[in-house]
């Protein structure tokens, strides 16, 4: 439910990051050779388009949010569900219009016109025909609609696509401009949408205009975390705060590895560890000049550490063989004790699976660390959301207002009457209260838990794991402990549309392949160096110039 949904969100984000090694800048491939606009937003222009942020917490969290800086906020934690959810929307938001909506769904598609859809339509005052499409094939389903210019009225276009699909090109032609309805104080007409932090709205902005409505946004979006088996480490007298440098971690590798017993300290950590060497996810600005992480000497230091980790025998052989699919099984079984992953892995389902494998199971995470143990540790802030819905450009203004009112209903905060309706359905029919926790009935599991509406709009993320309070407490306290380390990377939340050659250079597949071979101990650091110099001459340098001219000099760093 709530956890399920945020897990998916983070997994989505993590997948995109793992695939492209890009986190926040939503780099978009431009397929049209003729078009050379970047689609990026300028700071001043965007400010005028962004909706005002008016926090709204009708249900007080047990573990309140902690702010770390501008746009940085931990997710609030809830240990119980309100017995009498309050309503935030009076009356029905809709005026009887009929619309279709397409959202991705990872699971079994509910039957059309089921009792939950009917109840939702009655509550919303519109006829919203939900057409969920298979999430795994979503990227191949949508292009047929856009190429034929036959988008539904309301559609989810995940931003983790942006490297492959040019969503910016659809903005204005096929997707409606929402700036006139939501910019600045206008959003206050929709208080639940106004409670979504501005960072998330940036992810749906193109060319200084607002197009997207964010779902599952968070002020604490991170690429991932270095997890450990807290139960095992604590039994050996090791606590996470004793680990303060890369050298400490390497020592831990030696101490924890017992190959004869089939236990290796580490699974893959590169993707989540390398920023500890004071490296950006991609770009940094040094003395007003753009620098790519590949050009930094620290990159090779980070590479060296990971190469040593693998060749010293502290990395599980199956991880070296590239078997990521079973990483979580190895972790549950205690065959690996430290491994990287999306923060969304910290959820109730994980806790239940882990405890099933070992009753003492407890997931923990290391705090952000600086490799040298001296510098200030940093974690880069990821895009505030990776799920964004858009309205069709052909809708009339009155229709857009009607759907925005519906979105306001869907975005009602955790624990409200509307949130209960959207996430659990009708009491008695779709869920019952067990120990105060809304628990899905069979009908609810089929029709409500296969989430559709939250992909159109939803409130910002909360941490809630009914029945697994230890998870909520551990995760929120880790967030609070690390909120100060959260740093905005260069080009944060900026939507950049690139020509194809640049997006190929940006993906740097040949370098990333060699990097992977190196942290698996199969290639030397000098091989990575060679791959980097090939990359520079075959597009990398040209990319840097392009980014400098078209993004940095025009729109700034986005920080």
């Amino acid at each position, binding site marked *: 439910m709530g956890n399920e949904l945020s897990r998916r969100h983070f997994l989505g984000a993590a997948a995109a990051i793992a695939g492209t090694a890009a986190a926040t800048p939503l780099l978009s491939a431009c397929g049209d050779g003729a078009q050379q606009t970047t689609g990026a937003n300028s700071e001043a222009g965007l400010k005028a388009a962004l909706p005002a942020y008016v926090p709204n917490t009708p249900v007080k969290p047990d573990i309140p949010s902690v702010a770390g800086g501008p746009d940085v906020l931990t997710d609030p934690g809830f240990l119980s569900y309100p017995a009498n959810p309050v309503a935030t929307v009076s009356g029905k938001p809709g005026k009887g219009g009929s619309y279709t909506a397409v959202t991705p769904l990872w699971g079994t598609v509910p039957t059309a016109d089921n009792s939950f859809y009917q109840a939702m339509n009655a509550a919303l005052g519109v006829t919203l025909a939900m057409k969920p499409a298979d999430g795994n094939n979503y990227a191949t389903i949508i292009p047929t609609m856009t190429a034929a210019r036959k988008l539904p009225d309301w559609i989810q276009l995940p931003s983790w696509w942006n490297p492959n699909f040019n969503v910016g090109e659809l903005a204005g032609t096929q997707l409606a401009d929402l700036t006139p309805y939501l910019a600045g104080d206008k959003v206050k007409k929709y208080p639940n949408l106004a409670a979504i932090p501005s960072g998330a709205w940036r992810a749906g902005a193109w060319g200084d205009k607002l197009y997207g409505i964010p779902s599952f946004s968070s002020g604490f979006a991170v690429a991932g975390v270095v997890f450990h088996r807290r139960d095992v480490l604590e039994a050996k007298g090791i606590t996470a705060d004793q680990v303060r440098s890369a050298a400490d971690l390497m020592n831990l590798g030696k101490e924890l590895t017992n*190959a004869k017993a089939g236990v290796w300290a580490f699974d893959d950590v590169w993707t989540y560890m390398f920023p500890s060497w004071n490296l950006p996810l991609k770009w940094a600005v040094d003395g007003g000049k753009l620098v790519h992480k590949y050009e930094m000497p620290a990159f090779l230091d980070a590479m060296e550490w990971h190469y040593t980790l693998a060749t010293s025998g502290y990395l599980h052989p199956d991880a070296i063989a590239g*078997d990521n699919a079973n990483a979580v099984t190895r972790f549950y079984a205690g065959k690996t004790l430290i491994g990287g992953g999306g923060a969304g892995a910290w959820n109730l389902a994980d806790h239940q699976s882990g405890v099933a494998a070992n009753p003492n199971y407890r997931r923990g995470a290391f705090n952000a660390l600086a490799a040298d143990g001296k510098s200030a540790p940093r974690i880069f802030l990821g895009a505030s959301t990776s799920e964004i819905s858009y309205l069709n450009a052909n809708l009339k203004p009155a229709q857009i207002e009607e759907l925005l009112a519906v979105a306001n209903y869907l975005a009602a905060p955790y624990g409200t009457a509307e949130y209960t309706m959207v996430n659990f359905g009708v009491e008695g029919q779709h869920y019952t209260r067990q120990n105060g926790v809304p628990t899905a009935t069979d009908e609810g599991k089929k029709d409500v838990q296969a989430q559709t509406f939250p992909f159109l709009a939803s409130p910002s993320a909360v941490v809630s794991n009914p029945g697994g309070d230890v998870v909520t407490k551990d995760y929120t306290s880790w967030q609070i402990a690390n909120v100060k380390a959260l740093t905005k990377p260069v080009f944060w939340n900026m939507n950049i549309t690139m020509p194809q050659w640049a997006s190929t250079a940006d993906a740097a597949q040949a370098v990333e392949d060699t990097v992977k071979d190196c942290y698996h101990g*199969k290639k030397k650091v000098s091989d990575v160096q060679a791959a980097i110099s090939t990359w520079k001459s075959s597009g990398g340098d040209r990319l840097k110039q392009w980014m400098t001219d078209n993004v940095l000099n025009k729109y700034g760093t986005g920080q």
Partner: protein
Amino acid sequence: MSSGPMSTGRPRLSRLTRLRRDRSLLLMTVPAVVLLLVFNYAPLFGLVTAFQEYDPLIGVWHSGWVGLEQFGQLLGDPLFWESTVNTLYLSFVQLVLFFPIPIALALLLNSVLSERLRNFVQSVVYLPHFFSWVLAITIFQQMLGGAGVLNQFLRGHDIGTWDVMTNPHTFALLVTSQAIWKEAGWSIIVFLAALAAINTDLYEAAAADGAGRWRRMWHITLPGLRGVVVLMLVLRLGNALSVGFEQFLVQRDAVGHDAADVLDTFSFYYGIATGNYSYGAAAGLFKSIISLLLIWGANKLAHAFGEDGLYRK
């Protein structure tokens, strides 16, 4: 028109007559032809993207035309040539080590007299064909991998470990043994069928004339198999650039991209995976053209040696 059996000496029949004569045969080929048209010929239209900067969101009709630019870039890409060399090398290794095995297996099976035993052995060697590559490789990894049964045993007895699953230098041998384990049993079917087609009278007559086992194999069995062997060889050569996809995709991280990248995985990683669809399409098209030339050449060669090849000349 006479109603007697048609003699070959007659002038060619009119098209309509032949159509009428073969109508039931033609009707039977319709499903296969439709299948080919829908799944093999219609998608050929997509090749147009190799000459474009294709953007899936705006579709084929609106994507920009770049002519041969993708091909120019491809031919200048060292990674593309590395993949080509890998493909040819793996193909050669498989030709030498894999190709003879199903033939030998078929001959061995054919000489087993007990039908029960033969069926049992045949089922056992068929079975792995139905496993997916992911499963097959997982089994190899569980047995021979760094944390697998073998190495944990060696480790437990303080004998050095044996790294075979992640060694790029022996990768060609690894994938060939995997291919043999998985596919050799399946490949014997066609040879068994050819063996079954040999007239048993020949064996009896030869035996009556005093020919031993080896002479019978040399003078009857092998010549009987020759046509099929040549046909399979022609097909194999034509497919020299397709050594498989999933097998390499799954093990690419294990041995590194420069040992595992073949042309198909190249198209995937440097085309589709980075959103550079046109580049992937160009690599695919290039591969298809070379394959077409190879199969044409191999077929010519077969005809030159007086064999049927893909079709009778």
